[in-house]
């Protein structure tokens, strides 16, 4: 029935005819070899070849493509750089993939109002680069910031290492122009930091493409901090590093980042990008302070005392941008670096209340032992956001299934401890079966009603976030 409703062969032919009539030329891809390139995102365990790819140059082309899909009941998926770790931009077999990378213009920077208006295909870091001449920056910094796009950040409410202080993408989006799944174009929010009326912008952020596609995004910019102080502390156990985080939070200090890496993650980072972390560490804690120079100097003195008392074996601090970049290089490359330790890995993104981090880590270690798998841990300790990296060898029969089972156990652990199944990667394809474990039937029912009200034909990024089966997708 589903097949009949949205993916009927004649619908596919008709949508292709309509897309050809748009005059896209070589920007309409239909040849199998061209489509193969777009068949997965950063969650490479899932692959599906779309019916066609539209490399849109203008917002008008995005709207026309959405309208054509709606007219013929063909589902569509928007894609930026394809860095989603939850399969958020996985195409649909028989659906249209709308690639937004060419919509990469920064339309306006208003230094006085401290905002930028950008197209969805603009790369995250490009916003900060363009704003730098005014002493401003765009704060959200996912580890993939040098490639990921603002449109994808909005769709998945991306986070980053510095959201402890700065918040997530939704905290930095003031307004947007969006195309709804039936092709209607709507403006949400505006240029003010203060919303009046229901926060439609906030609801659209993180809706994982189910409410449509952002065509233009207005983001806030913040001053580049005058001073930044980064401390790298070495511990002989993960627990000791975790305790140090609790001490820092309890002291009333509010760092912009509090990150922990365990021995396996450190080993992986050293094997790949060679950040020069002190050898032999069981755990590393990265703490970053930023602000005016007087405040940072005073906070750094308090932090030094806290780290000394926390039993750190070694502390290195820096205010030098080059040294800081090297420290972060190891941290931000940690996901891909574990590729040096095992042929395959799964990244998880669970959240636990920060006081239960120690308990969560001990339980993850126990679960991994029982599953016979190695897990590297890299996490945003300040906000309880875990990133267990489950290592496995996909050539070994049953290994992927065991890794997925362990990932599921870890997510259930996060829910049991009062947390969330995702802090910043989104639910996507990967965790859609777990959403009803975190939310009750009535909560899920409302989410389904919201999606069906906005997109009755269920065309926009179908198969993401909401579970499949039982009439969901």
């Amino acid at each position, binding site marked *: 029935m589903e097949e009949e409703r949205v993916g009927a062969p004649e619908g596919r032919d008709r949508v292709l005819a309509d897309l050809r009539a748009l005059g896209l030329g070589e920007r309409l891809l239909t040849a199998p070899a061209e489509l193969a390139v777009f068949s997965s995102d950063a969650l490479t365990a899932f692959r599906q070849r779309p019916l066609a790819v539209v490399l849109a140059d203008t917002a008008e082309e995005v709207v026309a493509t959405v309208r054509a899909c709606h007219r013929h009941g063909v589902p569509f998926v928007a894609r930026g750089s394809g860095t989603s770790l939850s399969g958020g931009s996985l195409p649909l077999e028989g659906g249209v993939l709308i690639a937004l990378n060419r919509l990469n213009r920064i339309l306006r920077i208003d230094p006085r109002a401290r905002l930028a208006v950008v197209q969805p295909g603009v790369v995250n870091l490009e916003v900060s680069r363009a704003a730098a001449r005014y002493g401003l920056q765009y704060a959200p910094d996912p580890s993939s910031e040098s490639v990921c796009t603002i449109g994808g950040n909005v769709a998945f409410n991306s986070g980053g290492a510095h959201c402890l202080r700065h918040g997530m993408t939704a905290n930095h989006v003031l307004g947007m122009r969006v195309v709804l799944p039936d092709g209607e174009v709507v403006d949400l929010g505006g240029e003010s930091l*203060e*919303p009046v009326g*229901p926060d439609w912008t906030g609801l659209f952020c993180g809706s994982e493409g189910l409410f449509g596609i952002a065509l233009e995004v207005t983001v806030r910019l913040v001053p580049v901090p005058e001073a930044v102080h980064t401390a790298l502390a070495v511990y002989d156990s993960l627990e000791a590093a975790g305790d140090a985080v609790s001490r820092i939070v309890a002291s009333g200090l509010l760092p912009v980042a509090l990150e922990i890496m365990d021995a396996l993650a450190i080993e992986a980072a050293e094997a790949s990008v060679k950040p020069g972390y002190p050898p032999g560490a069981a755990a590393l804690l990265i703490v970053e302070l930023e602000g005016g120079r*007087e405040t940072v100097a005073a906070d750094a003195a308090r932090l030094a005392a806290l780290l000394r008392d926390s039993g750190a074996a070694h502390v290195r601090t820096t205010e030098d941008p080059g040294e800081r970049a090297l420290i972060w290089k190891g941290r931000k490359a940690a996901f891909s670096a574990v590729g040096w330790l095992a042929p395959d890995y799964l990244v998880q993104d669970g959240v636990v*209340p920060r006081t239960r981090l120690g308990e969560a880590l001990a339980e993850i270690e126990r679960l991994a032992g029982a599953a016979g798998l190695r897990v590297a841990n890299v996490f945003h300790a300040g906000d309880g956001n875990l990133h267990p990296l489950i290592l496995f060898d996909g050539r070994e029969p049953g290994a992927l299934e065991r890794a997925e089972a362990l990932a599921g156990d870890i997510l259930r652990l996060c829910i049991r401890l009062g947390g969330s199944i995702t802090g910043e990667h989104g*639910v996507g394809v990967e965790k859609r079966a777990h959403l009803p474990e975190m939310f009750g039937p009535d909560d899920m029912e409302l989410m389904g009603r919201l999606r069906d009200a906005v997109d009755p034909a269920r065309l926009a990024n179908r198969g993401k976030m909401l579970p499949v089966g039982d009439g969901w997708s």
Partner: protein
Amino acid sequence: MTLAAGHVDEIRELVRSSTGLLPRGGGSKPALSAPPHDGVVTVDVSGLRGIVAYDPAELTLTARAGTPVAELDAALAEHGQHLPFDPPLARAGATLGGVVAAATSGPGALRSGGVRDFVIGVRIVDGTGRLVSGGGRVVKNAAGFDLPKLMVGSRGRLGVIVEVSLKVFPRPRAAATLEIAAGGLDAAVAAATELSAGPWELDALELHPDGRLLARLAGDPEPMEARLARLVPALPAGATARRLAAGEADARWREAADLAWRPGGTRLVRAACTPAAIAPLWAAVAAAGGDARFGRGGAVAWIAWPDDAPLDPLDAALREHGLAACALTGAPAPDLLGAVRGGAFAQRVRAALDPDRRFLD
């Protein structure tokens, strides 16, 4: 008719059996909570009161919607924490649910963000009478649609908020306040822009239409004098600054958060604002004989509009600058003013939350 709800189940029952529903908390923003016409059923949630969960080490708090903000503030203060966005009208009885529903943030939102940045979870009774949850109790969470943000500014039109989870922050151990005379409103706006872009990390910055600014630094006591010593000489040419003694400073910030400067015979309107819109908005307010303050460095306009003046000129000025506003006191004013956004998206979301039109339009 008013129903004083002591329990969520009573609200669920009422929603299933009635129409024309309008929630009410502490009544500090009567334009949003008083019945605009006959036949309205007021759902009084002020009885749904109390802190449900507060672990200072987590920097999170969950409380029932009818809990007065003042009660939250007292509980947080015991542990050296606070809601940094200084929820307005706390001393007039504002409740947590009302602050979320009206999207009201006070002076401290400049540095730390407003109510939309601190709400991490909600429980609401939707238009079908179901009790539904969104978000959670952890500070970082990207699972499911962001119902908590949707409730910010929802004015009781999308559901009855019954419980809210918030992030909280450590309370700064010291503060210093400067009153800066910039010499006219245009100069004050320029000064505010300059100060906001600099390295000063102002905690709060409010503009008076006569060209004065009230600026607060907050943080640890140790670096405070050094911060001030660098800030004062860096003020724009022609501006003069006076440091306020602690007592006077407290009184001035209290006046700002309580909106106590508002003259009698006026209604309070909260408008979204931008630096560029300050002068034209003020021109419209002054022409009508009203008064205003521009908060959060100019991101919000608090407007005292004469009761006997029509709102049309304000509505027109707001539309011209793409801004929206909402009356908080005075005669019931269910409609938003100015450039209202959301269009078809808003209509569809509303239809999903309230399919049988139980809540007021």
